[in-house]
């Protein structure tokens, strides 16, 4: 099968690969580039475990073709901590017990990050809406909602 080149930045680093035409970004990230933080839960765009940030917007990497990402700036949860220091969202997910099995966590954090990037002080309803595309089967969601609100508070205190 003919290969197509794809080139983008992943968490600030240049990446280039040859992939089969039709390869999803999820497959390219996990199996070609080796970033396994986006997870494949349904491969049909319904669970949110594969969520990544493409040019500042939340995207489902299982429904995004790798070849459409040329020149894009892609961010994943594995690149969120800087110099070993956890991002406030990661800290809040730890402190609020927002993880259980952990499989949905990277996708949840991506969805939460896009929310806080656009809406630094969200209401509870805005948090629920922002996470509505991400399925968690363990926590019952409440600790995750609290974690996002906690991260927003931490951000605003740091900014003040």
């Amino acid at each position: 099968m003919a290969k197509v080149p794809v080139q983008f930045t992943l968490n600030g680093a240049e990446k280039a690969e040859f992939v089969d035409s039709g390869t999803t970004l999820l497959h390219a990230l996990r199996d070609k580039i080796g970033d396994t933080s986006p997870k494949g839960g349904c491969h049909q765009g319904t669970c949110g475990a594969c969520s990544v940030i493409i040019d500042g917007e939340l995207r489902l990497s299982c429904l995004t073709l790798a070849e459409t990402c040329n020149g894009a700036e892609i961010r994943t949860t594995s690149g969120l901590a800087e110099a070993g220091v956890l991002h406030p969202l990661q800290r809040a997910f730890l402190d609020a017990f927002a993880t259980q099995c952990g499989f949905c966590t990277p996708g949840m954090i991506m969805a939460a990050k896009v929310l806080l990037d656009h809406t630094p002080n969200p209401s509870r309803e805005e948090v629920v809406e922002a996470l509505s595309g991400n399925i968690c089967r363990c926590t019952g969601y409440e600790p995750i909602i609290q974690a996002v609100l906690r991260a927003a508070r931490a951000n605003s205190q740091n900014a003040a």
Partner: protein
Amino acid sequence: MELRKSYFADVRKDGLNEIGQPRPRLDSPGHVTGKTAYFADRNFPGMLHLKMVRSPHHHARIRTIDTSEAEKHPGVVKILTAKDVPHNVYTILILIQIGPEDETVLADGKVRWKGEAVVAVLAETERAAQEAGAKVKVDYEVLPAVFDMEEALKPGAPLVNEYHGQNYYLYDSGECRKVRFGDVEAGFAQADHILEQSYQSSPIEHAPTETTGCVVAPEGNDRFTCYTNTQAMFFTLDNTSIILQMPGSKLHFVGGTVGGGFGGKVDVIVEPIAILGAKLTGRPVCFIYSREEEMQISSPRAAEKVVIKDGVMNDGRIVARKVTGYTDAGAYSRHSPYGAQKGAAHYPGPYTIPNVWIDTYCVYTNRTPSSAMRGFGVTIGDFALEVQMDKLARLIGMDPLEFRFINAYRDGDMKAHRQPTEGAALIECMQEASRAANWPVAEKFMAMSSYKKGA
């Protein structure tokens, strides 16, 4: 969280320094950084993909299987049928002497549920495996199927599973698990009221976010490493050893990281066939359920039917309880004989009843095999029992919480299955519930204790 130290203060050594205190989870740092390694995060060069050809029928005889066209499909490396599996007929709980072996790794001569694995295709890509699977030709003779437990137990019903010979699990106690305590008919004769009700449930899928699967890598020395999300590591290792007729020392299982299980990953389904594929090809193999397979193929919680007949006095005492429970195992046992057995011990509920009669049946039907799920064997029973308790309270015009205080088991009470009650705390839990829910009960109930002082 509030910790009430007044309860059991005279008997409890109060070293509960951790209770009520937040402590970081050890696995969370890996989860929030995306570094936790799930089985599917392992990738090996040259890894093959395994896809199953599954039965489209609920019950059918297999006349022939023709894999010749599938074998020619580009990218196909190996196709496995029943004859390739060294010990093809197994049952998980044989490890604890619960037999007979009744389930095939790959169907041999017959399929007993829609979705049963028939042929395994190993190919260079998932797509090639899927496409080749569609070219496998299986000639079926469709047989009558049975989906309802009570129909399955009737004479003349289609026989689901020949390894059992009848559509129920044969316990050492006979066609069902039995509990006999006191004289239930005398209890009913004495009762002021009798209430008989029937409760039933449908199968429930766990729907974990991570689907069932494993990745197997040959180590090059006839030993195989299996990365798996099983919830039952040693059950899986030992059953794989039996199925593949390989010593356990040749099998290296790596797991413990499970993307949601809830009981849905305790069966031994994907690992043996994936390891066999790796053994016969010398290549790494991954076998991962699609979301559709997770929903349709993986074991759900069993459908259950519970018929409860209670005799109750006007003063609130339950004097007789007769329960007939049915657990729908589907086509194969897996963990269901154990689930039905648990129900037998559980159906009196946390109540002291002097006359009890319980029969629980583990029934075979042509439905998806059911298995473990969070409190399987008792959860549906608890729903039925507590609805029944509310109905009984209403029948005699009593407050439902006070009704439960009257019947609650206490230390020293003999349970119907002859285990004396120890360490009971139901009274105390209900007292707290009464306060927390602002549902007051008479002072005499608030003064009760699970201890029977002076008894």
